[in-house]
């Protein structure tokens, strides 16, 4: 396993129009520490898969460096990079048995048969594949195929990193959980450096210790799942992470302090006080989970009106309105109210983030 570093990496795809090319990724700097579970999260088309293919050498970047343990590998061929890659659609060698599938990368590299047998045995044990060992791979279900292709990746002891490209896309919801648990188990057991690409925040946050969020070919924020949830560095992250995303409330900074644009909402002094030197567009960000909501009137709380209620099992999502401001609030399921009812809302200071010109203002 190794520490993987991307240094001012860029990649352009040749455009269909002559002479023009477009950036898939631009000036990218990411470090994945040895033996960690990482996720690369971002909307479709933001360059995630391109990055994986650059790490494994299937694509040669147009600029920048890829480093394995500090050594530049830009010109190293794919087969010599010792990368394991699990693709979106499970790839198995149909005509081979499960065991031969696992042994394939070892045999290709000329390991002796005794070693091949013992190593594939270990991996089958680890992945619970023993009872499928002799089955033709084409008869497996998609989840099993995906496990086999993971197994092919980790069977080599010299594997530098395991790259997973949306590996759960075609897996049944029931089996998804099981497969994700297995991935996590394998990662911990073998202390693998794993990079998991997905556009599903839930998968990323539950799998990884460290999540990198990308947008339009650039890194937006790189943090622990908790950090991303509590302190999103931009409104984009705030909105992208969480379900529903973070409430963003536009504000104005004037002589009287911070005021909500187009609404007489009251902002606690402890938040408003941090804004002395801020200029440009200012926004307050608060997650629906942290919005305190009451059906009784409370002093210094803001009055909103309920626009809609959405039941989501153990909780409800309320859409609240005050003037031109609309926010969402997450409340317990036994919160009794109906559309049009007034509610009183408070934004706890420590859970409210302040953004100026699209960047988090740290106190």
């Amino acid at each position, binding site marked *: 396993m190794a520490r993987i570093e991307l240094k001012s990496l860029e990649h352009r795809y040749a455009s269909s129009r002559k002479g023009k090319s477009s950036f898939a990724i631009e000036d990218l700097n990411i470090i994945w520490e040895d033996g960690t579970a990482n996720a690369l999260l971002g909307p479709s088309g933001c360059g995630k898969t391109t990055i994986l*293919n650059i790490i*494994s050498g*299937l694509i040669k970047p147009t600029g920048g460096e890829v480093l394995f343990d500090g050594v530049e590998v830009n010109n190293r061929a*794919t*087969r010599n990079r010792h*990368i*394991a*890659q699990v*693709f*979106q*659609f499970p*790839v198995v*060698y*149909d*005509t*081979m*048995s499960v065991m031969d599938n696992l042994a*394939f*990368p070892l045999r*290709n*590299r000329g390991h002796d048969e005794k070693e091949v047998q013992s190593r594939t045995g270990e991996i089958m044990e680890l992945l619970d594949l023993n*009872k*499928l060992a*002799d*089955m*033709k791979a*084409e*008869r497996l279900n998609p989840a099993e195929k995906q496990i086999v*292709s993971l197994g*092919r*990746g980790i069977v080599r002891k010299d594997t530098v990193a395991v790259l997973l490209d949306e590996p759960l896309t075609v897996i049944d919801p029931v089996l998804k959980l099981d497969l994700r648990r297995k991935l996590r188990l394998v990662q911990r057991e073998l202390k693998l450096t794993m990079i998991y690409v997905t556009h599903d925040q839930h998968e990323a946050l539950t799998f990884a210790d460290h999540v990198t969020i990308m947008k339009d070919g650039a890194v937006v924020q790189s943090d622990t799942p908790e950090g991303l949830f509590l302190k999103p560095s931009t409104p984009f992250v705030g909105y992208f992470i969480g379900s529903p995303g973070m409430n963003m409330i536009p504000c104005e900074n004037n002589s009287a302090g911070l005021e909500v644009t187009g609404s007489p909402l009251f902002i606690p002094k402890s938040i408003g006080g941090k804004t002395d030197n801020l200029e440009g567009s200012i926004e307050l960000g608060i997650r629906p989970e942290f919005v305190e909501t009451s059906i009784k009137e409370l002093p210094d709380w803001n009055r909103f009106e309920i626009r809609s209620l959405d039941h989501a099992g153990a909780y409800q999502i309320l859409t609240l309105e005050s003037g031109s401001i609309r926010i969402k609030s997450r409340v317990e399921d036994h919160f009794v109210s109906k559309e049009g009812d007034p509610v009183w809302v408070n934004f706890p200071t420590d859970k409210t983030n302040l953004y100026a010109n699209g960047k988090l203002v740290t106190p």
Partner: protein
Amino acid sequence: MRQRPWLFLLPTLILMSISAFVPLMAVINYSLHTIFAGSTPEYVGLQNYTDVMGDPQFRGALRRQLTFSLIVLLIEIPIGVGIALCLPRKGPTVGLSLVLLGIPLLIPYNVVGIVWRLFTQSDIGVIPRVLSMFGYKYNVSLDASDAFMTILLVDVWHWTPLVVLLAYAGLQAIPQTFYQAAEVDGASTWKTFRYVTLPKLRSVLTLGLLIRFMDSFKVYSEPLLLTGGGPGNATTFMSLFVARKAEAYELGYAGASSIIYLYVVIVMSYILFQFINRPPEGKRA
């Protein structure tokens, strides 16, 4: 309304019975009679079948036919796949290559026969000319093996493009990730072909194999126009044999050999299909 499905099947069944069932019944009926022009057919039971089976000419034609079809498959399938692998995958040359390859398929059978007859004519043909430069005396109408090889060559020229087109379509349908995975797994070019490309081509190649087997088993117009089945019986394949008998107005005999011929085609195709399409090994736990 349990009969409803039959109602919908009726038009097809009627058409099929006119085009296949009725003629087949007629042929079976012929095959059970001895028929002479002008006289009443005489019922002879399976006598014609016994005669055909014991006829060395029939056996020769069948043996020749099997050899021919086997060689055709052994040449056309690998070459077809090979050419498909060499074709460009994208860009402006794709259309051009496919059109060039498709040309032999567009030429009517009898034109193919006539064109190749001109090519191989021992006095004016280009093939004898070229071969004589290498010191080989080629003569399609005198040398039995020359004649057989020529028919083989014509068939390969005519039908390999079909295999190419099928294989090419099959290749295009293989997702790129399979090749990427093979690269990541460190597979050699040969292993990639053996374990990725070939298994993924199996269904189209099955189709190609079956089509080419059945078609080559029915080869008729090429030997008819090029060699007339000769020299001797060197290129008298099954269809030619049956046609000769029918032309000689031995209708009962021709009918019996047709039925045997049909039976052989069906049985061989079935065996081939079973062999290629056998279910994957290993049981689900």
